[in-house]
């Protein structure tokens, strides 16, 4: 019922506005076109100035209201660089923003049409045009240089001491795989994927490198140690979004991608810094992947090397789980008959 009243009220409001608009049109005709235009010039030129001032105050209020809702300090070495670059870009674009917007609205006010005034027939000035082409060109060159410096350093090869974690996206969750003690991820074949047989990633069980690989739904990282994510997808394109680390990379079926970075703070340190005892790093999907896209979130734990080693040691390898579940016959001699290539498909950076 209240919905009905709202609709009636809106219709009434609409009719009133239209009637006023119609009446003011008649008034304008009575007053004469020139006088009406003169009045409109005054009114809207003033409104332009009011908009500028109110807008600038609005920007300040908006910033005051929202600045505390931004992300905490960047949690990766690369993220710190990106944040720094963002500040530089903010300053440069901010200066341009304020200069051009203020000029626009001040001109809009100052040069409003006035009776007896005429515009200046001024339409060329090659010197000033040269300057306002050259200055943006120069500024852009600086921004490109800064940007590419960071871009190449972030996308360079991962350092040799990086640990490797495989990230696989699927509708609608993430699967992480750790290479285990041998430091090598075993071979996979997507045709062997079988959730019912404890093989969500299609690991080739006859490949011995697979035997100690640990599969988890949580991403564990070591603070201060570079990590190289080897990213893939089982079905459609997903994206490994890491807002706290200021990074992301698509997960594309059939096209492996990588991303490496160095976490700076453990989860516990971050909890202390943000004052939120329940703080958890998140990995969010940033590429539309279907109806469950919005629910494709995983937890990330950043811990010390010791904690990580303890955690990894406490995990059963997927091979063991599959074996316990009866998905793999315990007689390994049978497996030797399966066609296996000697080398693992993915070699760790070690």
């Amino acid at each position: 019922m209240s919905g009905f009243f709202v609709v009636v009220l809106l219709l009434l409001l609409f009719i009133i506005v239209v009637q006023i608009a119609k009446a003011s049109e008649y008034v304008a005709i009575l007053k004469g076109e020139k006088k009406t235009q003169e009045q409109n010039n005054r009114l809207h030129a003033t409104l332009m100035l009011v908009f500028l001032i109110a807008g600038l105050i609005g920007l300040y209020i908006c910033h005051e209201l929202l600045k505390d809702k931004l992300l905490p300090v960047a949690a990766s070495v690369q993220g710190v660089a990106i944040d720094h670059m963002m500040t530089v870009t903010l300053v440069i674009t901010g200066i341009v923003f304020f200069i051009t917007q203020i000029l626009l609205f001040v001109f809009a006010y100052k040069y409003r049409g006035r009776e007896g005034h005429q515009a200046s027939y001024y339409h060329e000035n090659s010197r000033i045009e040269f300057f306002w082409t050259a200055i943006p060109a120069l500024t852009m060159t600086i921004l490109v240089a800064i940007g590419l410096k960071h871009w190449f350093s972030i996308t360079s090869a991962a350092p040799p001491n990086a640990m490797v974690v495989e990230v696989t996206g699927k509708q609608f969750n993430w699967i992480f795989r750790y290479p285990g003690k041998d430091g090598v991820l075993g071979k996979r074949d997507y045709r062997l994927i079988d959730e019912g047989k404890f093989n969500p990633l299609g690991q080739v069980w006859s490949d011995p490198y697979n035997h100690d690989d640990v599969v988890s739904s949580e991403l564990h990282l070591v603070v201060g140690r570079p990590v190289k994510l080897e990213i893939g997808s089982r079905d459609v394109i997903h994206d490994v979004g890491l807002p706290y680390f200021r990074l992301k990379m698509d997960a594309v079926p059939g096209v492996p991608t990588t991303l490496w970075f160095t976490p700076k703070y453990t989860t516990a340190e971050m909890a202390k810094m943000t004052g939120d005892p329940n703080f958890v790093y998140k990995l969010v999907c940033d590429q539309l992947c279907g109806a469950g896209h919005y629910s494709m979130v995983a937890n990330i734990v950043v811990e010390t090397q010791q904690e990580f080693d303890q955690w990894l040691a406490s995990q059963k390898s997927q091979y063991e789980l599959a074996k316990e579940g009866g998905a793999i016959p315990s007689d390994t001699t049978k497996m030797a008959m399966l066609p296996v290539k000697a080398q693992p498909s993915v070699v760790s950076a070690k």
Partner: protein
Amino acid sequence: MSSEVYTGQAQRAAVAAVAVHDGDGHAHHHHQSFITKYIFSQDHKVISKQFLITGMIWAIIGGFFSVIFRLQLGFPDKSFPFLETIFGHWAAGGHISPELYYQLVTMHGTIMIFFVLTAGLSGTFSNFLIPLQLGARDMASPFLNMLSYWFFFAASIIMLISLFLKTGPSEAGWTAYPPLSALHEASEGSKTGMDLWLISMAVFVVSQLLAGLNYISTILNMRTKGMSMTRMPLTIWALFFTAVLGVLSFPVLLSGFILLLFDRNLGTSFYLSDIYIAGHALPNQGGSPILYEHLFWFLGHPEVYIVMLPGMGITSELLATHSRKPIFGYLAMVGSLFAIASLSFLVWAHHMFVSGMNPFLGAFFVLFTLLIAVPSSVKVFNWLATLWKGNIQYTVPALFAIGFVSLFISGGLTGIWLGNSALDLHLHDTYFVIAHFHLVMGIAAFFGMFAGVYHWFPKMFGRFMNNTLGYIHFWVTFIGAYLMFWPMHYEGLAGMPRRYYEYSADALAIYHRFQGLNEFISVVAIIVFAVQLMFVFNFFYSIFKGRPVKDPNPWKANTLEWTTPIHVGHGNWPGEIPEVHRWAYDYSKNGIDFIPQTVPVSPAEEEVGETVKTPQ
């Protein structure tokens, strides 16, 4: 100049053709049936109105969809029973389902970008202005022109049908990335809805190509005597580059879509490899979804400028006319349009920095993307310099043109953030992107369109739109645009992902803090949408009841369209086509308020802004 001679010849040929067509005079021309006059019309002015009104209907649908999904984002816990009335089981209990949410998002993007801001914007103004401002009786091929509208109409019908499918329309986003768009199992919308989406878009591309080729040939060949390229109004230059962009890039999109149709229905593997979905492994091997991304964005980025350039042209024209001052830096304006159009072909992969594309390749796209800021800032400075020392007449079109500049600055500057690949690593696919492109190519392009509609409405229908409603329309939309999209930058900086059905899950606790803001944005969106409905009312009401135009040149403009009678017939000029003697921007020259292009240059007068002299 040889081009001058050629233009003259072409024009005489056109005049002769019309003379033959007209029989013994113009008066007999209107013996047409209702169908040939208003439906299968070959008159560019009628076709332009057809594009405009079809575009407006789509804009209402597209805008309404955004209101529905904003209700979900702003009020995820509230139930709206009317949604169940409209959408049935897709909105059981008054909550839209995730599928419906993604379908609405997808259709909002597709409709707004292609059907409204491409067909509705450049379709309307290219058709209306090219012959009228160049001094031609019609397009080079009126028949192809008619076909281009009817292909668009067919595309519209196919897209409309897809809204009523049992499995719903496409939900793969307006970019329709495979494998999500390629596999029936990937989502409800990837079933029949996706096929119809692709077919509709393919038909749409045909429409755009027919239209674009026609615009280009008309501009190159059908200019009246004296209308050298460097005397063309900037609207025509902008529409010219728009057409060139469309002709060069839409075919690539078409190829991408056809390969996708093959992957969907014929078992090919252009985009598919190593996929396990819905409990089974697919046989497809060796394809790459990144190939699709390249094909898509090769159009997708020029498309942004297809949407933007007409607005830039209209703004340039209207700022000059309504501030009674010549446009500043005419040649720089043409040059910057050319630079933007050329560079737009070299930046497509800035949408793909995080796609897994080779990072070395990405470096070139950073460079070219940031280079676009140079011609863009030249345009902004020239617009500012046009206002400087002007005598601005605050009509409704003038307001929208000034609003365009403000929005273009605000949205354009964040392009410098997103185009720098290292920053894109953080900002890609967050609300920052939404804020950026809605300001710069969504609302700004709409402002160009509104400015054009208010300005040329008297020429289209012989009546004015209601001014007071126009002023309300401007101020509410302008303020609303900033209220909606400015705070979204903060959400984006906080890494809030776009295209999320809801943020209320515990796992997304960090985004709960934006719930109040989301609610605020939704409320503003509803108000702004309501005001657009008021504009639509004003438009249709004024066609029949608006204040009649008495002066054939109500804005005191210099361009040729205002030399036609108030009610323009087929063929545009009752007598001979006027000859052009000067550029379009002689405002306030030597103390004269305006000097139309048809006025000869007096011997004492110095002709400026003109390199090619016409023999007198």
